[in-house]
């Protein structure tokens, strides 16, 4: 806290010493003259994202402050157009979600599960991906073949593979048949809560490992072989080489893919939606699919709450990302 205040004070101090800034219009004109190439190159993305993401976000934010649902929103039935009748209710939606009656069942239980799900999946992705990448990074006969086979889950569309997993994990599916023939218990993968969650983690891990593996393999190949030679000359053991050469060499790739992995897993809609459908597995729904169910999977559709969930999700991720980046920056300091 004090650090932040000091920095802010230093900033204002520096600002005061500068000559008065030119007017806004002049600055804009100047900026346009020097940087118009850059702006022209960035413009398409900014326009498309502004229209398709920025505006929906602004509208979503507004909706969270109302009690909009499918009964009081503007709609057209046949030739009759009915105007929207929803009211402005302030922050009631957020209050209701976070500490209203049954808030635990609706929000907090899903929140806890979402956090567990994200941590578990990203950890599994990273560990398995790293293990496979290390194996593939050796001089090994047939490693091209292994690599091509191992990347396959990434190449085949998710809805195809999840469909296949559903058949495999069904009550009389192959997984249970094999477990049965080994005289092991045959869980109901798609019905009881614990196994639904286990199945979701399993399928998501299966789908997500190849991306991690390829990224980390790229990172491993970017490490200078000289470093390993030097370490070996100094008598470092295999573990020491891994700990002090491989891991630091991977840190930049690793931190990026972990961040992306957390964001993607936290918002992993497709796998859970396709594995269980909208109404199946109420306890295995993470916040994203839960928000979708509120907005689309029930009658009346609760647009306001659904949007409020979305805003909460976004805020959680933004907070996480800033903390993570700050943590990375602090940890990177001694290394440099």
């Amino acid at each position, binding site marked *: 806290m004090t650090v932040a205040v000091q920095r802010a004070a230093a900033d204002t101090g520096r600002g005061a010493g500068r000559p008065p800034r030119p007017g806004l219009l002049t600055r804009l004109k100047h900026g346009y003259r020097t940087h118009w190439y850059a702006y022209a190159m960035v413009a398409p993305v900014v326009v498309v994202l502004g229209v398709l993401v920025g505006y929906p976000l602004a509208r979503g934010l507004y909706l969270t402050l109302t009690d909009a649902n499918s009964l009081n929103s503007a709609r057209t039935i046949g030739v009759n157009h009915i105007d929207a009748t929803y009211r402005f209710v302030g922050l009631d939606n957020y209050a209701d979600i976070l500490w209203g009656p049954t808030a635990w069942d609706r929000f907090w239980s899903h929140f806890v599960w979402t956090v567990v799900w994200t941590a578990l999946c990203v950890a599994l992705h990273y560990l398995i991906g790293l293990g496979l990448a290390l194996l593939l990074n050796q001089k090994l006969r047939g490693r091209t073949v292994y690599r091509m086979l191992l990347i396959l889950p990434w190449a085949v569309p998710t809805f195809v593979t999840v469909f296949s997993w559903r*058949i495999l994990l069904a009550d009389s599916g192959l997984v249970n048949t094999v477990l049965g023939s080994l005289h092991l218990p045959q869980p109901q993968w798609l019905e009881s809560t614990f196994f639904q969650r286990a199945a979701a983690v399993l399928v998501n891990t299966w789908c997500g490992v190849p991306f991690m593996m390829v990224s980390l393999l790229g990172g491993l190949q970017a490490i200078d072989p000289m470093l390993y030679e030097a370490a070996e000359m100094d008598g470092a053991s295999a573990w020491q080489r891994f700990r002090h050469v491989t891991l630091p060499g991977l840190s930049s790739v690793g931190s990026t893919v972990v961040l992306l992995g957390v964001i993607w897993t936290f918002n992993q809609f497709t796998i859970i939606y396709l594995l269980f459908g909208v109404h199946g597995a109420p306890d295995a729904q993470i916040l994203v699919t839960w928000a979708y169910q509120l907005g689309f999977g029930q009658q009346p559709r609760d647009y306001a709450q659904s949007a409020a969930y979305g805003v909460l999700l976004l805020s959680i991720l933004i907070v996480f990302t800033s903390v993570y980046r700050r943590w990375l920056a602090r940890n990177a300091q001694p290394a440099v």
Partner: protein
Amino acid sequence: MSTPGTPPAPAPTTRARHAPAPAPGAPAPSAPARAGRVRNRRRGERGRGASVLSHGVLAVGSVIAVFPIGWLVFLSLGPDKNDYLHPGGIPGKAALSNYTFVLAHTDFFHWLRSTLVVSLGTTVVGVLCAATTGYAVSRMRFPGHRKLMWVLLVTQMFPVAVLMVPMYVILADLGLIDTYGALILVYCSTAVPYSAWLLKGYFDTIPVEIDEAGRVDGLTPFGTFWRLILPLARPGLAVAAFYTCITAWGEVAFASTFMLDDQKYTLAVGLQSFISEHDAQWNYMAATAVLIAVPVSVVFYLVQKNLVTGLTAGGTKG
């Protein structure tokens, strides 16, 4: 040191951590940990035991990776819709009848055409936008270039579910519902941020001197980008194109919301129509799923050589 009675040395490298012991006993006799031979081996080589272990783990991993897809291919050969419940009976009556039915009696080719239009359109538009953005951020110090990358990352955090309704309203206002353009735009908005990050990282690895040489020879910034940098960035572009293409190829939620005409369904949406009827026709679904997976896998193997190098650059500078 290594008397015959010594128990097997612990796995020699950390690489073996995930080993589910595929070849019992194999690493024991020649485990290199303590043997004097260690010093004689060149770097990057390892003893037989470690090698067998590596092959074992990779083989098990590959089987796990391929199996669900292979199983689907197998099931798609069963001609009856309940065959998936009794996979043991399939080898006896395997036939390609599901494939002929899907190809001849459904809208498969309409769906395929829509999917091709949408995913290729997304790839071209998306990669171009991502490349210009990535290049601008990589080379030009315009005000807000840092914030732009940050904003791009934030757009990845939006839950799809929440954007759907407002997006639908906007696209309806623009008269784009039920057109390919709508899907291309929407997919670009999801695929471009990551591609731009990736390409920015790749452009960072190309020396700035090349740009300067181009400028000295009288090229405009656009000319430099188009004629010098893009050709050099081909591996990065291949990865971005691949990523964009599979994102568009396999997306379900937006496609089923924004496309209303069943002739314009993409394959992902068309596939769902086999179970939305009164009965679930799993056999046709499996056959269609296989047919969908084939083209992507082909594209995939065309770019996979570039994949590792391209992602590295993106990752190390990310």
